[in-house]
């Protein structure tokens, strides 16, 4: 396949923490415009992978290419400015700011005045319209002026998504976007992800197999830090190794539901 | 024989003297490291407690006629008891908050202890004689070394090693290390972690007081004696890597020697050399020489 189709490519990505290898020799390639999922048992190294891709951790070895350029040496914020924006496994918002301000923080970057310490706050109000649009898209328009700390967990995740969208990322990295949500919310967010993925690429970690099976184009399975398998949902769910390591060895018709219930989403 | 323009004996003798200083650094930074490790508190009062140890030794001798050797045991115990009180009544209430508050509280305690002793004993200091048994000098060929200073090095090495052994090699030490990582879980195993925390603080404080007694015969016993030492010791702790036991011991001794070398070649810088070393280390290893990254 032509190189331009690959938006993100890693070669031999490895991360060792004091001798413990959390990610080992992962070579990943994410196609432009696709929704790509990273799955695997707890502690498989999914979040660590995200941390490496966004340079929150420095890789022990290996390289990362984004749009053909080597970004292995860049700082996290630089990577973000190139259009790779991540969300966090545990909801990451700015709790003491209002909902609107949360989104505005993300929008502010394009204004180019982030360093202007002499300018008034009012100069930011022209971002409000766009911020409201985004909030509307995730169904939070009614909460715009509420303190973020007061939001319910599911709404915080929605807000996080809106904030991520506000930066207009080319590649979105979502770490368990539906974790901690009720059934209805899961469906809404799944639909939302599907909707916003138009024109972008999404790489997501997800334990919820119904979400994975419904929107994901391609799946990479990690186990003990290494790639175990890669393919479409159907390929993956038939792969005996994956079934042994992750989805379980139960009978065919049950496996989806079992997988849905099995792994706890609770992080450490 | 000369080395870079300095006669070798002079260099050797300064190195040896540096080691004596390093011993004090090592005990003090060890105490700080132990306290920081388990309580996450930077004990700003450490210098004041060091001074308290020395003053206690003086009080013991002058009011009760207690010998140096007795005070070497008693002073740390008394200071440790004070540590228990401080931890139980004050520090304990701050663990929930930012670590900064521990630093500020102990700074306040430091000012209180120093102020109180100053109003009683003034500042010009109290004389404390070298204990009889250690008063002579040894001729080492390249220098005369007062026996007392040799004793300081030996005693502090012994104390440091014993502490290291206790923390790295014993059951109690395992509780301590586990408690640093996850105190609640250790408690769930049935270990009385709050008590452990109290005792750890008391132990760290006791170490400071012990250093104080060791220092009494060589430094003037005065309420201000800890004030300037402590910030240097902070730098030692930062260089060693905060909370690292072995790091604080080696860095303490090493920096003492390093300072000794500086005194030979460029004495003007001897006050700042520790801080310069700190900056250099931080540039290369932000977590300190023996520290763990985040």
């Amino acid at each position, binding site marked *: 396949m032509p190189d331009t189709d690959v938006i993100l490519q890693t070669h031999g990505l490895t991360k060792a923490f004091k001798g413990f290898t959390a990610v080992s020799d992962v070579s990943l390639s994410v196609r432009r415009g696709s929704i790509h999922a990273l799955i695997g048992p707890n502690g498989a190294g999914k979040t660590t992978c995200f941390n490496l891709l966004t340079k929150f951790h420095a890789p022990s070895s290996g390289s990362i290419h984004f749009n053909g350029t080597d970004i292995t040496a860049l700082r996290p914020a630089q990577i973000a400015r190139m259009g790779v924006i991540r969300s966090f496994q545990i909801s990451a918002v700015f709790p003491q700011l209002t909902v609107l301000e949360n989104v505005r923080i993300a929008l502010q970057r394009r204004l180019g005045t982030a360093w202007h310490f002499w300018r008034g706050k009012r100069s930011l109000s022209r971002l409000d319209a766009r911020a409201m649009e985004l909030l509307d898209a995730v169904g939070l328009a009614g909460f715009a002026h509420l303190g973020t700390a007061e939001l319910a967990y599911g709404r915080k995740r929605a807000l996080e998504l809106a904030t991520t969208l506000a930066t207009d990322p080319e590649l979105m990295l979502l770490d368990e976007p539906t974790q901690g949500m009720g059934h209805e919310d899961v469906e809404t967010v799944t639909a939302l992800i599907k909707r916003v993925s138009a024109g972008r690429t999404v790489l997501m970690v997800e334990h919820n197999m119904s979400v994975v099976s419904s929107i994901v184009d391609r799946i990479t399975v990690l186990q003990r830090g290494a790639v175990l398998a890669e393919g479409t949902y159907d390929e993956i769910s038939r792969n005996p190794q994956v079934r042994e390591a992750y989805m379980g060895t139960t009978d065919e018709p049950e496996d989806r539901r079992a997988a849905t219930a099995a792994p706890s989403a609770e992080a450490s | 024989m000369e080395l870079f323009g300095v006669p070798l004996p002079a260099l050797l003798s*300064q190195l040896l003297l540096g080691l004596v200083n390093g011993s004090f650094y090592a005990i003090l930074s060890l105490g700080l490291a132990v306290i920081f490790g388990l309580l996450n508190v930077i004990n700003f009062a450490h210098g004041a407690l060091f001074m308290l140890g020395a003053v206690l030794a003086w009080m013991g001798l002058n009011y009760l006629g207690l010998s140096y050797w007795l005070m070497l045991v008693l002073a740390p115990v008394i200071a440790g008891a004070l540590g228990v009180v401080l931890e139980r009544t004050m520090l304990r209430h701050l663990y929930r908050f930012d670590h900064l508050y521990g630093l500020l509280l102990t700074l306040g305690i430091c000012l209180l202890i120093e102020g109180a002793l100053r109003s009683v004993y003034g500042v010009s*200091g109290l*004389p404390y004689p070298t204990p009889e048994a250690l008063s002579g*000098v040894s001729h080492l060929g390249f220098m005369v070394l007062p026996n*007392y200073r040799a004793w300081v090095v030996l005693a502090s090495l012994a104390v440091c090693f014993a502490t290291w052994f206790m923390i790295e090699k014993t059951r109690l030490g395992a509780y301590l290390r586990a408690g640093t990582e996850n105190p609640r879980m250790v408690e769930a195993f049935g270990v009385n972690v709050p008590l452990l925390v109290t005792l750890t603080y008391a132990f760290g404080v006791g170490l400071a007081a012990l250093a104080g007694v060791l220092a009494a015969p060589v430094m*003037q016993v005065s309420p201000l*004696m800890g004030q*300037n030492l402590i910030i240097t010791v902070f730098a030692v702790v930062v260089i060693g890597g905060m909370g690292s036991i072995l790091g604080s011991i080696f860095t303490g001794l090493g920096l003492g020697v390093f300072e000794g070398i500086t005194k030979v070649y460029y004495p003007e810088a*001897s*006050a700042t050399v520790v801080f310069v070393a700190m900056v250099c280390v931080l540039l290369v290893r932000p977590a300190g020489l023996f520290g763990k990254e985040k």
Partner: protein
Amino acid sequence: DANGVKIGVITDMSGSYADLSGKGSVLAAQMAVEEFGGKALGKPVTVLSADHQNKADIASSLARRWFDTDGVDMVIDFPNSSTALAVQEVARQKQKIDIVSTGGAMALTNQNCSPTGFHWAWDTYSVSYPLVRRLIEQGRNSWYYITVDYAFGQSLEADFRKAVDAGGGKNVGSTRHPLNASDFSSPVVAASASKAKVVVLANAGNDMINGVKAAGEFGLIKAGQTVITPSTFITDLKSLGLNAAQGLTYVDPFKLDLDGKSKDFVERYYKRHKAYPTHGQIGVYSGVLHYLKAVEAAKTVEGPAVAEKMRALPVSDAFVRNGKVRADGRMVHDMYLAQAKTPAESKGPWDLVKYIGTIPGDEAFRPLSASECPLVKK
């Protein structure tokens, strides 16, 4: 003034100089007032006191407020040179009298001299030059310095070096150490290795004390080296203990047993303070007494007029006999070559010093001809 003459003692009550000035200075001022009869110009004399915490800003704002709103006419003591210089500036602006007793900075009567500012007990010149001359005469002609590494120590060492050069002696080396160093073994070992006949501890306070202790520990004096501690107060000897201090040589501005008057003062002072007066403290006494005499003579408390009388009148009291105040504000008086006694020689807890010579005032202080004070070059 309606409320009579007010004298303010600005001193260090809680810091490093508290023992050699502090409350003892306040007492000395009160004793001077009592001796003067408690009244000047027919009105009562009051003594105020305050702690400057060794901070120049506190000392100067205190002095300012005292001058401006509390009607204080004169301020005295200042053990710390930065506070002394800061207050001298304020006093100059307000045309009030300031007398520095415990502090020793040369600048006070040199480039920073003031028409209403006086320097009473000692200064760094007076404890170095005369001493060098005496010792070189005795054949102690090679000198080594252990110097605290800031202005005070540096200028002290420089003074000594010049004096040694002038007297035909030899400077064989020096070691610098930081302020409030806890360890003096290295400089002392270096000094011992230098085999110099005289080792000067060009430092003060706790540094000096720790230096002396180390010198004793490493056997300098036993090996025949003369250890000089220029800035020695009697409280330093007390806290060192004679075991460590014995044989120290220095210049003392005050001879405790000069005559009956001095002895009597010391005795009365001891009864009230439980300690002998340092030369800084008795300097406060002497300064206050002289000031009051000048006020009486001038028949006013106006600073310039009083200052003129202070310069005109001779100084004579329990502290000094034949003192005189020079144009630059320096009070010139005899100084004494002193040595710490051995424990065997000492007959009481405060019997610490023996005097081994007298340095006439004119020889003790820097000649006016060398002064940079603008008041002199008229």
